[in-house]
């Protein structure tokens, strides 16, 4: 048993990156504090169901079961031995001058740090499709979480749309679990997917596993589709209207649509803490900048999908590297990192391959109909965003003030990229030239009462 070490190191997030960072620090004799939104460590990819659920790790995590079990066991052991302090079910909602404002069940608590490791992960990258505001439309990640953590499908008849590894994976997982998957619609064409091949060859087994999952979908899978509209009645989704690669209109009845175009890094805290951002052409989004180890400056380290979308295996390595960087900066002797850096380079090549094969659907967003909703929080339409661009010029934050897009309760997580794309189209520039929404605290909604103290 130990107490939080001095200097105090705080890790935000307990997915693969956060767990490896914590374990590396503990191995060096330090006692980190780990703040996590989950009830138990694992993150989204290795999320654990509540107590009393009986499916085996093989059923839950498939080919990744061993990795998941190892990470869970490692973190649980470190928590039990009190080698670290685990603060579950807590959200960091603000960072200011070396202090984290943490919202938990008991209200807001201030936790100071000397070094900060952000392992905040990623969520689905969403492009709006007309009708996506209706009940029964979920992210692909949601469909997977529902299955993994609750054992349920979010509808009786499912259509999955978008592009990326999760599209195929969720389709195959739902099918295997017995869900009625009517169609899996990929906006990336076969030809486009082939362009990712050189990169994907960096991990041939993973690529083949993906193809095998794809094969399981059989005739449900369609590449190169055009998504037209999610049809709904008063109680929610009733059908998906789309065109196949040959241009034929198809209507697939369904009561649930899962959507997503690969992933979007969760960067709000990196923004608040002052990280430098740059537009990344490969991943087609703004990402915080670090050195190869994950150093972002000012005692802040970034690891995992919150910094670079390399996936769970890459997150484990990045977590370790960020912790080693932190140890080095504190003057500790640190273990060699060459092998990890080499592995990370290979994983990065694969991730670039994925990004090329399953791109952000820029054209679909740029040409979306005026009446389609861009901001799902406050039902702000494409017309309102275009009008904002005409009035305020092609700058992201001016658009935000004019149209409120990005100011809703999700704080732009699900509309940001689409809004910026629309402004770029309207202003005749590239989306990188529009800039990005500035992050604002609190990064999760917090009741005013949480800030009040009875003293």
């Amino acid at each position, binding site marked *: 048993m130990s107490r939080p070490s001095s200097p105090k190191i705080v890790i935000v997030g307990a997915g693969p990156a956060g767990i490896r960072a914590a374990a590396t620090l503990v191995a060096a004799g330090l006692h980190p504090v780990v703040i996590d939104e989950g009830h138990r460590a694992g993150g989204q990819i290795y999320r654990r169901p509540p107590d009393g659920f009986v499916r085996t790790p093989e059923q839950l995590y498939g080919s990744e079961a061993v990795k998941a079990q190892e990470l869970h066991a490692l973190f649980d052991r470190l928590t039990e031995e009190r080698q670290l302090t685990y603060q579950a*079910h807590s959200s960091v909602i603000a960072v200011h001058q070396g202090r984290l404002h943490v919202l938990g069940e008991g209200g807001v608590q201030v936790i100071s740090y000397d070094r900060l490791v952000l392992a905040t992960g990623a969520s689905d990258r969403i492009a709006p499709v007309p009708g996506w505001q209706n009940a029964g439309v*979920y*992210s692909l990640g*949601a469909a997977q979480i529902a299955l993994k953590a609750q054992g*349920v*499908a979010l509808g009786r008849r499912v259509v999955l749309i978008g592009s990326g590894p999760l599209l195929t994976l969720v389709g195959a997982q739902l099918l295997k679990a017995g869900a009625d998957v009517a169609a899996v619609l990929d906006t990336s064409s076969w030809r486009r997917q082939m362009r990712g091949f050189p990169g994907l060859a960096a991990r041939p087994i993973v690529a083949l596993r993906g193809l095998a999952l794809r094969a399981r979908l059989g005739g449900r899978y369609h590449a190169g589709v055009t998504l037209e509209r999610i049809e709904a009645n008063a109680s929610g989704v009733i059908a998906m209207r789309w065109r196949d690669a040959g241009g034929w209109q198809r209507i697939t009845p369904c009561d649930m649509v899962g959507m997503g175009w690969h992933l979007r890094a*969760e960067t709000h805290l990196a923004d608040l803490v002052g990280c430098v951002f740059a537009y990344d052409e490969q991943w087609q989004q703004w990402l915080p900048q670090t050195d190869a180890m994950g150093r972002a400056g000012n005692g802040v380290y970034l690891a995992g999908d919150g910094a670079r979308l390399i996936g769970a295996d890459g997150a484990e390595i990045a977590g370790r590297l960020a912790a080693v960087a932190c140890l080095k900066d504190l003057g500790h002797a640190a273990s060699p990192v060459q092998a990890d850096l080499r592995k990370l380079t290979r994983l990065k090549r694969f991730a670039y391959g994925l990004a090329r094969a399953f791109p952000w659907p820029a054209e679909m967003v740029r040409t979306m109909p005026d009446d389609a909703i861009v901001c799902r*929080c406050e*039902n702000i339409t494409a017309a309102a965003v275009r009008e904002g661009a005409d009035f305020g010029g092609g700058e992201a934050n001016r658009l935000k003030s004019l149209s409120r897009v990005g100011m809703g309760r999700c704080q732009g997580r699900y509309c940001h990229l689409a809004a910026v794309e629309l402004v770029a189209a309207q202003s005749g520039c590239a989306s990188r030239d529009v800039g990005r929404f500035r992050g604002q605290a609190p990064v999760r909604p917090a009741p005013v*009462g949480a800030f009040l103290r009875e003293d």
Partner: protein
Amino acid sequence: MITAGRIVRLAERDRAEVQFFLDGEKRSALAGDTVLTAMLASGHALRSSEFGPELRAGFCLMGACQDCWVWQEEGPRLRACSTPVTEGMWLRTTPPESWP
């Protein structure tokens, strides 16, 4: 197992029943269900949108989108996707009278 609501229970069906109240009516769910799962096992939505005519039933299930906030008869609002349902909970799809 198809439920009366939106969700289909594909696995983990052998769990104890939990009773809760939704808009004053008694409903049942399973121990370990989130509020979202519990509500969608007997209904098709969690709440209505403040900005449009449509109903909402959650979106991201990981606490990022904030689409799934529901009310309790007493006490704070809940994010349905990340709150476990408990025996005797009183939930509402609309704000209580006292809501500002």
